[in-house]
């Protein structure tokens, strides 16, 4: 299954939840925000979202800026 994460293409297995993807990427859930197909999804919804082909996921966090 081919999806987009932060603009880059990636192949992932089927039946993968958004929550599991975050775990696989070794990201701390409390420090990121996830946009799933252009919709901001709170962490409480991650486990209920099963990733499908061609999904687009943006994973963002804060960094230094003025």
């Amino acid at each position, binding site marked *: 299954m081919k999806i987009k994460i*932060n603009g880059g293409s990636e192949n992932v297995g089927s039946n993968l939840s958004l929550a599991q993807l975050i775990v696989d990427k*070794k*990201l*701390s859930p409390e420090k990121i*925000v996830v946009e799933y197909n252009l919709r901001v999804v709170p962490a409480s919804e991650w486990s209920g979202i099963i990733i499908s082909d061609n999904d687009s996921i943006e994973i*963002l*966090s*804060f960094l230094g*800026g003025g």
Partner: protein
Amino acid sequence: MDNALIIGGRQIQNRLFIGTGKFSSYPLMKQVLEVCRPDVVTVAVRRVDITSKTENILDYIPKGCVLMPNTSGARNADEAVRIARLAKASGAGNWIKIEVIQDNKYLLPDNLETLKAAEILVQEGFTVLPYMSPDLAMARRLADAGVSAVMPLGSPIGSNRGIKTKELVQIMVREIKVPVIVDAGLGRPSEACECMEMGCAAVLVNTAIAVAGDPVHMAAAFRQAVEAGRRAYLAGLASGSGDALASASSPLTGFLR
């Protein structure tokens, strides 16, 4: 003697806002924030580098600071709104610095797109502080839209050229009901002091502190300058005569003639 600056329901003690970009390390930035104790700190929102483990900036910002994410990277109102919503979803609170820039050469903001974004975000309950080119008519429109402050630039971002827009900012300070905060371009503590003497409510400084030889001492110097300028404003500056003639400060009549 000072009247409190209140933005978004928060009482602001320290009128020096600090930007967190360009520091050589997060621990150094943390030291600066500990010395300066700002009420308001800006951060940016970016894609996580999923290929490497990076430190989280929030671990280095003292609790109690108001986080003001900016919408840097946005080229139009829609992108600014999208970034603002993401920032809010991350639990950073509801403050947002709107920054809409299409001009990569001078990084000057697009005031019209900024207004469009401000109108939407105020409706959504954000505490909105727009970065703008100093323009009285636009500042009035932004104030009417419900922004919490307006933030005109002193000179282009990161240029350290000081308050080149002084006359225009002064007009805004005189005429606009919401706080006027000079954001961008201030390179020296004396320039921050000058803004405060003019009656600006606060200043936002990043580059001048972050890339100084000793950022911690420079931050302390900026803090003192902001306090001095504010105090001078409240004390009421002696007005100039308008011409270049001197006005004696000691009596000129006396015993020698």
